């Protein structure tokens, strides 16, 4: 740097860094990078540590009692003498309420996300989305209290009518759509325009009447149901779906927004309607993001403890018949929460370790579903990029 002419040396010296300063910069950069790396590593290590410690205390259970009882028997009597640790009914209960909440939350959440991103005006969306996200801020104990004190008595006292009205609300639009589509399809082969219209009308009338009768009889049947206990799988599924909704709506809406204007405008330019654009262009393009949203929502339901502990009734049996959502169930999370107090090496170690076995099972389930969703997202990305 000393080789420069005196005239330019004065100007460029502002950009030349002394060796000492360069060394200092290098040290601070390394310090900064290593700090960030350390923090990131700590997060990863915490996950590994949790896995290790849960597994360490879960393994003795399987050493003492073996695998078959835990996974195949439904008798859960950890405090009895001799104790029995059949967790099948509890595992089933967990899956049941998770599936129930997904059944409610996924269609609702994805529809709401589509509505937010592509249907309602932007100015309205600015207000509606934060309100939906507020749901996530409500503590789970408040949800549990609501389920126990308000929803449970409501289901017990007005269970039949509630089920009937829900059936009417959900089934009637679908049936109406089905009647119209079926009548159209059946009459397309008729060449003459005026004759086709007449046949169509007759078909709509006949199918409409049939589906009305169907709606009515199923509704009547539902109305006669007497819900014995309000703290049941249905109650928990409803509340859990409320808790999963903000996650599903918010994340899928972000995914739909990320699709971008160019795809939408390209679709419109080719003459597609808004419905065609949403169903055939935007949803496939955003599907990996929506799937991630759904998995996140389901994980929220599976891991929730307080609400299920308060509102599921905690009875460790498989409902009769197996799809009966109107009976009480018990979940893995609630069992861990409920049995932790007494479980200790003092009172028999299998009872202590079985709770860790349940925790490990929950961890494994969430790892597997995360892994599957990751794989689907990667494959989807490949398909979309045309590989």
């Amino acid at each position: 740097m000393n080789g420069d002419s005196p005239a330019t040396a004065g100007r460029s010296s502002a950009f030349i860094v002394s060796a000492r300063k360069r060394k200092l910069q290098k040290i601070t950069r390394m310090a900064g990078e290593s700090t960030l790396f350390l923090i990131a590593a700590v997060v990863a290590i915490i996950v590994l540590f949790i896995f290790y410690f849960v597994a360490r205390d879960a393994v003795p259970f399987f050493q003492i009692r073996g695998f078959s009882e835990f996974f195949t028997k439904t008798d859960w009597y950890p405090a009895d003498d001799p104790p029995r640790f059949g967790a099948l009914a509890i595992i089933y209960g967990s899956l049941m309420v998770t599936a129930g909440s997904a059944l409610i939350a996924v269609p609702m959440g994805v529809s709401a996300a589509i509505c937010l991103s592509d249907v309602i005006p932007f100015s309205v969306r600015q207000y509606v989305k934060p309100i939906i996200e507020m749901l996530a801020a409500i503590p789970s104990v408040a949800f549990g209290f609501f389920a126990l004190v308000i929803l449970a008595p409501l289901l017990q006292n007005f269970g039949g009518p509630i089920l009937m009205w829900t059936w009417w609300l959900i089934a009637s639009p679908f049936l109406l759509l089905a009647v119209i589509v079926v009548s159209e399809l059946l009459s397309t082969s008729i060449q003459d325009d005026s004759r086709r219209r007449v046949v169509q009308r007759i078909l709509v009338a006949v199918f409409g009447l049939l589906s009305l009768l169907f709606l009515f009889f199923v509704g009547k049947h539902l109305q006669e149901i007497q819900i014995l206990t309000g703290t049941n799988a249905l109650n928990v599924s409803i509340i859990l779906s409320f808790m999963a909704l903000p996650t599903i709506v918010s994340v899928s809406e972000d995914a739909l927004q990320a699709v971008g204007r160019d795809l939408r405008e390209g679709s419109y330019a080719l003459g597609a309607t808004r419905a065609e654009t949403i169903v055939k262009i935007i949803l496939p393009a955003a599907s990996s993001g929506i799937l991630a949203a759904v998995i996140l929502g389901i994980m929220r339901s599976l891991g929730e403890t307080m609400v299920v502990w308060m509102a599921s009734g905690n009875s460790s049996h498989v409902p009769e018949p197996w799809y009966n959502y109107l009976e009480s169930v018990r979940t893995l999370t609630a069992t861990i929460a409920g049995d932790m107090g007494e479980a200790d090496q003092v009172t028999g170690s299998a009872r202590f370790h079985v709770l860790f076995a349940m925790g490990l099972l929950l961890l494994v389930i969430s790892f597997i579903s995360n892994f599957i969703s990751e794989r689907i997202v990667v494959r989807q990305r490949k398909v979309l990029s045309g590989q």
Partner: protein
Amino acid sequence: MKKQWGRALSVIALVVIVANGRAEAKNGIVLDGSTTVGPIAKSFAAFFMNKYHVPVTVSESGSGNGAKSLINKSCDIASMSRSMKPQELAAAKTKGVNPVSSVVALDGLAIVVHPSNPVKTLTIAQVADIYKGRVTNWRQVGGPNFPIVVIQRESNSGTQESFKDLVVGKETPVVGSAETQASNGAVKSRVSLTRGAIGFLGLGFADASVKKVAVNGIYPTPLTVKNGSYPLSRPLFFVTDGQPSGFVKQFVELPKSADGKKIIKELGFVNKY
């Protein structure tokens, strides 16, 4: 709801106590255990602190936890709604703890149903059959044609264990479809809101929102519990490590004093002395 927070707080308290070890116990009294004995323990603590200015810490985490704390030497007094189990006594022996129990009060286990239920009396055998799942409709025990919703307590509960010993029998499991609630208050609220429900509560918790039924023809009252004619009664205990001395002794013997008796009576429990 309070119970849930109470549970959380007692867990925190427990952690703090365990962390401090016996340090805290040296200048005060630490109690841990039964939620049923809880009201008595807390009132005694308030009375004791007023009179002797000795700090008393009360945690309610279930009888099993009380025994555990005593064995781990993290409390001075374990309050229990059942006696110590053989395994717990064995564990205490290995840790060099010598549990000494003294009776605090007597408590009746009230069998409660929904206020609209016309059933007035049940035999112990009928209650046992309901909890074993052999009787599933109120019609079978002289009530209306309506299915029974069975409600029990979680396995932590001393009340649950007393009920199992007194009614169902130790070896027989409670029917799997029985609902499980975490506290006396939760059982009471579920029974008061559910038409077909049956549950059991400490006598002090059974108020007008639920209907107490007579067992073997005897209605649960403080009098029938005290004279032993009501079949489902049990003693509540304070358990200490060795014979108590000093302030701990004074605390354990409060139930024998006039003030202690008054507190116990006001809370709806039955005096033994």
